[in-house]
């Protein structure tokens, strides 16, 4: 074998190793997904779960618990977590900022403000209790309004991003300002709310996978899969963007158009899941940062790894939320924020050491 052939071979071995790591991550996800199906107040063995998955007629009660509650919740975690990871890695790339995430640019706060508007001004949604789990009844209007708030934030950021001469740093800062604005608007609405409205409004902000059923999952999938395919197809464009706008443009990439489309699709993915589930912080920020040490900055692998990492994090957080104070089920948003903050600080310290 010639020296050159040898080098190509080594290069490919490295790429295969990276792919292998991403696949391993996916393997971990499958195991965790099964653990999620086992977690809950009704004790089920692995055998019973498999039996129900293969033949739902065998045990009607177990089938209902698995299919309508646990499987639906697990799929919601995979879709929402994957979507948050996807949005995080894309936003960090196109805004050239490691702190960019759906949470940072104001999408989550926009949704919260929209939900508060529907609950307090339009009188939609009331809290009801089902065993150890609370839920928001009559929440279609709340979801629509939350989506409207998220889209408002997305629209503002997109208009700003498409303006001539506006830097990516300015977009991030505008997102922070927008978050503060939506936060203030939410507080203003809550100030004039009665006790029940206030409770419902605050309850909505607790990101909770229990809010999702199969219909919500279908919509989340519709908002997640097409953007994922678009981003995977454009993986080389995102690699080029890392070298700066001029380099990317000189390679034939329409940078401005790419940035606007990428932001729009990433934000839409998150807007849909946030509208259904509430605010789930840190996953969008953390997933790409946890994926990078495994596969590097190459978006051929980083996009898939961030999606898998986001799904993994949310699924793991949900299992903790369901078992930590069982039989009480905590909203998963509390767990992600509690775990996310120290984890992020740990990563910062590791990076500083490196």
């Amino acid at each position, binding site marked *: 074998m010639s020296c050159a052939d040898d080098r*190509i071979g080594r290069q490919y071995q490295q790429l295969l190793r990276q792919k292998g790591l991403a696949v391993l991550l996916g393997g971990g996800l499958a195991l965790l997904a099964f653990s999620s199906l086992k977690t809950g107040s009704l004790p089920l063995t692995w055998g019973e779960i498999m039996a129900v998955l293969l033949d739902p007629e065998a045990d009607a009660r177990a089938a209902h618990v698995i299919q309508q509650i646990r499987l639906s919740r697990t799929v919601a975690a995979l879709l929402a977590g994957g979507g948050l990871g996807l949005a995080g890695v894309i936003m960090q790339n196109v805004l050239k900022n490691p702190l960019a995430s759906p949470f940072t640019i104001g999408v989550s706060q926009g949704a919260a403000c929209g939900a508060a508007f529907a609950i307090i001004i339009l009188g939609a949604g009331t809290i009801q209790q089902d065993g150890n789990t609370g839920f928001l009844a009559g929440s279609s209007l709340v979801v629509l309004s939350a989506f409207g708030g998220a889209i408002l934030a997305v629209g503002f950021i997109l208009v700003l991003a498409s303006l001539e001469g506006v830097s990516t740093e300015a977009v991030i800062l505008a997102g922070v300002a927008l978050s503060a604005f939506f936060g203030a608007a939410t507080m203003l609405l809550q100030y004039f709310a009665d006790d029940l409205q206030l409770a419902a409004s605050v309850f909505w902000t607790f990101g909770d996978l229990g809010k999702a059923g199969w219909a919500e999952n279908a919509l989340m999938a519709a908002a997640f899969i097409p953007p994922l395919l678009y981003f995977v197809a454009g993986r080389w464009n995102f690699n080029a963007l*890392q*070298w700066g706008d001029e380099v990317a443009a000189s390679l034939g990439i329409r940078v401005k158009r790419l940035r606007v489309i990428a932001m729009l699709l990433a934000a839409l993915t998150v807007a849909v899941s946030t509208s259904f589930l509430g605010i789930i912080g840190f996953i969008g920020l953390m997933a790409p940062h946890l994926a990078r040490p495994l596969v590097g900055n190459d978006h051929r692998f980083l996009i898939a790894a961030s999606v898998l990492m986001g799904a993994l994090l949310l699924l793991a957080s949900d299992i903790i939320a369901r078992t930590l104070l069982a039989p009480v089920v905590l909203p998963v948003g509390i767990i992600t924020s509690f775990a996310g903050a120290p984890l992020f600080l740990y990563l910062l310290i590791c990076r500083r050491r490196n």
Partner: protein
Amino acid sequence: MLVLDRISFSFKGAEVLREIGFALQPGRLVALLGINGAGKSTLLRTINGLLPPQQGTVLIDDIPLTRLSGREVARRVGYLPQKSNGTAVCTVFDAVLLGRKPHFSGSPAARDLKLVEQTLHTMGLERLALRDTSRLSGGELQRVMIARALVQEPRVLLLDEPINHLDIKNQLATMSLLKRLTTELNLVTVVVLHDLSAALRFADRFVLLQDGRLYACGDRRVMNETAMREVFGMEALIREVEGIPVVLPLAPCTP
């Protein structure tokens, strides 16, 4: 061949380039010279289509740039910006492979990988192929950037101040390499330089810009003491030391 036909470009009402026109033959290393703000970087950006001129035409091998898509331009023009607003952390191999982006859809083919191998060999970067770009010296990274532009298989190579921030040894090595590649690959290579001695030593042709206008375009004879005074605003001597031309700046001209 690269032809600029009366190029004009304005930004926010201010005229940056005015009716610039010249033709450059392949196999020539061209030094684009002028003081700060003369319009050198803007001119490079108009040549590669990043800043379309309001008037005039850029032709590469007789094809107007306006008839080509961004991707088609990228197959003909390699560009190294003055400063990049990003540096990705990846292997040298991947950084150079990115230059094949205009040539493939989806994933790179075996020919793309082979060309990267050859270019790394040409640039003396073979031993760094799997090294992280974050672990390269300034000179090594600059060579990687040039390799990425070369692997595009361009007809025209545009380099904006490629030897700035390099030590003297790397400056000489980079300019010698560019000179050799220009001849071997029959490229039109346009290099923005501030080092006039390096320009005189390595370039075959000289384009002198003054306030966005073409002051002169020609061979070494345009680099005379009058041009030093009128274009660069300094009194200078041009001498040869052991056959190597040197510009000796004396003093700034009094206004």
